[in-house]
């Protein structure tokens, strides 16, 4: 069926026995699920049951490439992680850029599965068809970058790619990240904690192969055209990066401010973290991921003042949640906090959210320094933010509870739920959905908890372009479904979403690229594949006991935004119900949010999932 695009093999490593095996992946699975996130969801359905707990020995962690991962086109960098995540306690899909996916393919594999638990702290080295372990207990407590450097020091030369975790993962912080190479990460959901619970500190991979292509000459043509397209279409991304959104989202009244107590600040109270400030005072250089001509990443460094020496690559989400949501208007403090998160190995989004929570608890007098080893943590205090991040990783003071994430905090202190911004345990990204209601539906129905990407990126449409109307609830169900399905197939390609337009991977995808890579005309089926993946992911959640009751938004969303351009707007239970009703109908799910049997049949899922 396929003349290229797939290696057709999965590498399975049993960490308990240190045996490994190579398994064939059937063509039919590629046809139905494409790769990446789709294959990961199918694997999860088959191998991770509802009884498995995220940090227990029975959990597994899988990495899945797509047909574009590592092929010689622009930005073919993406790798998907799939596991049961500790932040939500349920299904987690997460993607990262970097070289690990491409190198895994050069080693001859489309997927890597880790199961069992190592007896000793170790690193896994995959080189072509061989697997070996490097045990070293002294790696414990090191930063992800330090672990990477030490692992590479012990390996022969070659194009190695790495993954590594930091001390927060070793402490079981449920929002600890898994770092790829020297700066990209599987940020959300706690993939780092799952890996560390298997006593894996790092992995390295390299290989001598390459991904077969159905039409190599056509791929060259497509690459040249994509580069030309991106020179103009993504010039703004290169110029100032995603941090430009800070000013824009604040101007539109949707910027999380002081733990979402409001969604806007006067420019003089937020311009310290604008893109222009980053560029003029802290910018060092752009950086690019694997085969990327956009290079949207901005390396920043603080040269003077109390945070001198700090280095990071702040993106919009990190700036929004470590900055305005913590009441911080100083880019040097944000860069330092971003670096601290990277060194500890924690997700900047959840870290920003939950430190902002602590700040609000102090503001309201609900906690005091006595509860936190003498440390007061107030909005606007950059040093306190840094100390609090350490407290989380070391499980000290309030950090011990914060390390358990939104679900853990609510379990311990249910009365604080009104101050916690999350859906299904995953904390909010840096967009306040009270200012554009489709984002509320995205957060509530996303396949991994509150997520602006997996849930459907409504920012460009309803917020920036104004179509559909940002405050409407009618029409948002079909709109969000379409964005989610589009994203689900993009996450299964192995391609960075920033460049999707250059290949026309839209809701009406163009056929050339995948035809040239695989020899199979996927294009007419891509949106159906996306819908199939979304529905399979929903079946996973349903099997784990999740239904409409958990497709919810937190209490603060029912309160009107007090000031700014979106003042007075909120999302009531009735408004969310209207959106959910429409969304479920558009998906062919019943009123409880369970996919109906005819929907499963239409999407060819009944037999694949063993439900026939």
């Amino acid at each position, binding site marked *: 069926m396929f003349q290229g695009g797939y290696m057709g093999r999965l590498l399975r490593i049993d960490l308990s026995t240190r045996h490994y095996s190579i398994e064939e992946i059937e063509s039919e699975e590629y046809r139905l699920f494409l790769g990446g996130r789709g294959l990961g969801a199918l694997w999860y359905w088959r191998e991770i049951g509802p009884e498995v707990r995220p940090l227990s020995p029975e959990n597994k962690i899988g990495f899945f490439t797509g047909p574009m991962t590592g092929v010689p086109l622009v930005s073919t960098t993406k790798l998907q992680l799939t596991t049961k995540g500790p932040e939500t306690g349920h299904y987690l899909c997460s993607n990262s850029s970097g070289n690990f996916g491409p190198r895994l393919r050069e080693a001859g594999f489309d997927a890597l599965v880790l199961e069992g638990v190592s007896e000793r702290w170790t690193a896994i080295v995959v080189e072509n068809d061989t697997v070996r372990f490097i045990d070293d207990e002294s790696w414990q407590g090191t930063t992800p970058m330090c672990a990477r450097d030490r692992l590479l020091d012990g390996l022969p030369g070659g194009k190695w790619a790495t993954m590594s975790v930091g001390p927060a993962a070793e402490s079981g912080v449920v929002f600890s990240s898994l770092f790829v190479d020297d700066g990209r990460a599987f940020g959300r959901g706690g993939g780092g904690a799952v890996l560390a619970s298997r006593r894996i500190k790092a992995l390295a991979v390299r290989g001598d192969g390459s991904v077969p292509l159905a039409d190599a000459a056509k791929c060259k043509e497509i690459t040249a055209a994509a580069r030309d397209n991106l020179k*103009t*279409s993504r010039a*703004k*991304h290169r*110029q*100032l990066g*995603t*941090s*430009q*959104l800070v*000013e*824009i989202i604040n*101007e*539109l*009244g949707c910027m999380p401010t002081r733990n979402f107590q409001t969604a806007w600040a006067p420019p003089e109270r937020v311009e310290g973290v*604008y*893109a*222009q400030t980053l560029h003029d005072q802290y910018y060092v250089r752009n950086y690019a991921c694997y085969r990327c001509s956009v290079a*949207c990443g901005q390396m920043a460094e603080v040269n003077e003042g109390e945070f001198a020496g700090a280095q990071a690559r702040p*993106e*919009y*989400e*990190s700036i*929004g949640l470590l900055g305005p949501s913590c009441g911080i208007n100083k880019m040097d403090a944000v860069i330092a906090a971003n670096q601290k998160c990277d060194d500890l190995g924690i997700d900047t989004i959840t870290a920003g959210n939950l430190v902002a929570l602590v700040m609000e608890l102090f503001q309201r007098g609900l906690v005091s320094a006595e509860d936190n080893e003498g440390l007061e943590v107030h909005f606007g205090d950059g040093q306190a933010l840094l100390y609090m991040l350490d407290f989380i990783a070391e499980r000290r003071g309030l950090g011990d509870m914060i390390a358990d994430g939104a679900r853990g905090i609510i379990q311990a202190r249910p009365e604080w739920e009104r101050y916690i911004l999350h859906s299904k345990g995953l904390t909010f990204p*840096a967009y306040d959905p009270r200012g554009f209601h489709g984002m509320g539906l995205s957060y509530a129905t996303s396949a991994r908890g509150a997520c602006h990407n997996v849930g459907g*990126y409504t*920012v*460009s449409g309803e*917020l*920036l*372009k*104004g*179509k559909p*109307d*940002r405050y409407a609830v009618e029409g948002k169900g079909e709109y969000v479904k379409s964005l989610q399905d589009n994203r689900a197939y993009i996450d299964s390609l192995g391609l960075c*979403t*920033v460049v999707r337009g250059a290949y026309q991977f839209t809701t009406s995808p163009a056929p050339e690229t995948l035809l040239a890579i695989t020899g199979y005309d996927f294009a007419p089926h891509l949106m159906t594949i996306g819908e199939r993946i979304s529905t399979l992911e929903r079946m996973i959640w349903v099997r784990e006991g999740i239904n409409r009751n958990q497709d919810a938004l937190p209490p603060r969303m029912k309160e009107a935004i007090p000031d700014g*351009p*979106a003042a007075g707007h909120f999302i009531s239970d009735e408004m969310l119900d209207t959106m959910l009703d429409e969304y479920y109908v558009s998906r062919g799910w019943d009123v409880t949010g369970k996919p109906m049997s005819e929907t499963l049949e239409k999407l060819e899922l009944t037999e694949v999932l063993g439900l026939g």
Partner: protein
Amino acid sequence: MIEVTVKFLAGSREDFGISDTTISMPQHAVLSDLGPYLHALGVDQEADDIIITLNSRGLRQWPSDRRFAPGDVIAVFPLISGG
């Protein structure tokens, strides 16, 4: 005449070489009259890579016959996503 503020945000400031300005529009000017005034500032209202809002809402969310009023603010910024 009605004075309308035009703000250039993020990367648009460098692109257009200006951070903010005011345009004077006739008393009964409506939204569909805006194009030439923006054009005079170098802004193509139909460009794919630019977003234009009126009072923090996309232009498409306003009726084309909506009259300008004192205090109206136009914002121009690049189409950026992600993060």
